[in-house]
Each structure stands twice: as structure tokens, then as C-alpha cells.
């Protein structure tokens, strides 16, 4: 089947099977920043923004995104770079596997919450697992990134 979408503000038509998941389709179309983790909605590493909201692409059928907007980390490059600098400064970066999904969720949070507290940031990011940093450095980096605005 054909599915028309807007990926990072570019119109695309995906050719896919009715049971294909968005994660597989995006990776097949070379959006390799969208990563596979648990593949069962738990880890958040496959997060993309669907109509501006973070969703786990491993559990969204490609057929269901007809006409919608998808943003991967390439679509928020400037913001991801700003966040990345704070990650570097705070030692919040180790293997980096979860970074694209984390950057997307933080970007969505910035649009969703007004001046979030540390507790609100922690709650918002519950669905994004990181197995390297222990979250403290990430939290510091994110608060500094939000403070830049």
C-alpha cells in the first residue's frame, strides 16, 4: 500500500505492507537516526514526533500515519545541536544511542510545558530509557538547555 506523509517538512510516499510498523518503514527509507531498542513500546529509543507529539514508532502502524507529519532528529537539527552541547558540557553523553529520541522528547516537552520544573522534566522523560548515564547529568543538561530560551 501507499502512505503519504510529511517527513521533516518534506512530502514522501512510503510503499509498505498494511502490517508494517513506522520504525521499520523509516529505517527502510534511510532515516537511520530512528533506532530500534526493545521493539515493544517500553524503551522509547524509537521515538519520533507524530504531528508534534512524541510516539514510539515501533508501535505505530505506517498505514495509520497517512497525511500526518513526522519529525526525526534531523528535522530539529539546530535544537538538537544546542542540547548536544549541554550534554557534552555535563557529561550526559556516553554511547549516544538514546540521544536522538531524547532530543525529540525534550523538544516536544519545550513546546508542551511552560518552564517545567526538574520533577516535571523527570516525569515527561519517563518513557525514554538510557542505560549509560544514570539520568542526573542528562537532567542537568536539559535544565540548562531550557534555561537558554
Amino acid at each position, binding site marked *: 500500500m501507499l502512505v503519504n506523509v510529511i517527513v521533516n517538512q518534506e512530502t514522501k510516499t512510503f510503499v509498505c505492507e*498494511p502490517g508494517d510498523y513506522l520504525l521499520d518503514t523509516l529505517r527502510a527509507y534511510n532515516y537511520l537516526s530512528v533506532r530500534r531498542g526493545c521493539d515493544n513500546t*517500553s524503551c522509547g529509543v524509537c*521515538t519520533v514526533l507524530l504531528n508534534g507529539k512524541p510516539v514510539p514508532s*515501533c*508501535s505505530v502502524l505506517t498505514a495509520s500515519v*497517512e497525511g500526518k507529519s513526522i519529525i526525526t532528529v534531523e528535522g530539529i537539527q539546530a535544537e538538537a545541536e544546542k542540547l548536544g552541547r549541554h550534554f557534552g558540557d555535563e557529561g550526559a553523553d556516553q554511547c549516544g544511542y538514546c540521544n536522538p529520541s531524547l532530543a525529540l522528547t525534550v523538544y516536544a516537552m519545550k513546546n508542551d510545558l511552560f518552564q517545567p520544573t526538574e520533577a516535571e522534566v523527570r516525569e515527561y522523560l519517563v518513557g525514554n530509557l538510557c542505560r549509560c548515564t544514570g539520568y542526573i547529568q542528562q537532567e542537568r543538561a536539559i535544565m540548562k538547555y531550557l534555561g537558554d530560551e
Partner: protein
Amino acid sequence: MFVAEYVRPKNVEEAYQALIKDKKNLIIAGGAWMKLTKKSASKLISLEGLDLNKIVATEEMIEIGSMVTLREIETNENILNTCSGILSLACHNIMGINIRNIATIGGSVMARLAFSDIYPALLVLDASLVFYKSGEVSFADFLSHPNHDPDLLLGIRISRKAEAGYFRKVAITALDFAIVNLALSKTADSWRIAVGATPFIASLAIEAANYLDQYKELNDEIIQTAVNMALDEIKVSKNQRGSKEYRIELIKTYLKRGIRSVSEHVG
């Protein structure tokens, strides 16, 4: 999951006809838990575009469309201001925001998930389900009578009568399913108590609630008796998340706290 065809009906009747045509035709809501099933579908019927994603509030009740996401419920002002916001709180405790952005209340209800955090809240909010063909069905009846003809869930109605409520989920981590979850509510003259994830599907403790209804002022003895009555009514057992004994202790503790908290709020 193998899907032969994905269809987007233009109206509810078309969706219903597609559903009843073949037992292997299935409705897709948000799809959040679809990977946990091993089913295949001849047709996967999307309910998007059928105008089932609205929340409409009146003074007496709130009607939530079946395609409303858990995140939308969590952040809706009217739901936050109903019965101490227990339904919002129940949604807030479900995994991460990314899941709550796709999981819908309709999908959560129709899946009959024993671990569901929203069931106890819906039970004490006296929720009813609005089906396309069967009409309005009490949520409590829906849970206790699992067999029913295929139908489309259009929405869920919750009562706004309760003056105060309490919700508690106990889980090992934020991303885990509940070891136990429970909710309480009180209107001017009646209590409702529901306990879920025991690990059985949520149910009401009717006798315990009726017992509390007799008293205007509560004391420790009355509360303890009500908790014991609730434990007699609710089926509790063990699974990989917790032993029967641990669950019983959790239920005792949080029911007591819940009854006290609601009593204080209603004065």
C-alpha cells in the same frame, strides 16, 4: 502481527459492517499493545476520522470519545476537575508520554487488561460505555460479563457526581504494570471502592462501600471493618509482580489511606 488489509471507513456504519463481516476483522485503536498479541487480521479497521476523539463535558457527566488518547485525558481540565482528578491521575501513571500519546481509552477498555490502571478509576466514576448497536452498558457489567457480540465502542461516559476521590497505583518502576491499583469516590450519599491488578481484572467492593454509606462520621474501627469487607469481596492472588500476602497488605494500607483522604475532602 500479520495484517492483510488496512481500511479507513468513512463512517461508523461502514466500520461496523466491516467488523461483523469476518471474525478475523479487527478494530485498531491506538495500537499501543498490539505487539503483545499474536493475532493476525484479515482487515484492520481504523477508527480515525470518525469524530470519536472529542471530550464533551456537562455539569452531570463527561463523555470521552473512544479514540481520545490517555494523554488527552490526563491533561483535560474538566477531567482534572472531576472527582479529585482520579482518571487523569490514573492515566498519568501509565508508562511514558510517548505511549500515552498513542494509547486510547477505547483500546484500553476493549482490551480488558487485568493490569489496567484506568479501570478502578472508571468503576468508581460510575462509567458507562456507549456502543454503536448495544447502546449504553455499565462499565462494571462490561467487565463482569466478558462475552458480547462484536460492536463499536463510541465513547465512555463518566459521572461528575462524586465530591472527592482517591487513586493509587503501586508498581516497582514507573514503566512497570501495577502490583495493585485502587480507586475510591464519594458522592453526597454513597461510596464506591474498586481494586484492580490483583492480578485479576478490577472489580467493585460493593458491600464495603454500602457499609461506609451508613455512617456520616468515620472512625478507625469503621474504616478497618470496611477494609476487611473489601478484602472478603475482592479476589486476590499471586503472580510474578507480587505475592497474595503482599497484595493484601498493600490493599489494606491504601484503602485505609484512601477512605481517610476522601473523608477529609468531603468534610
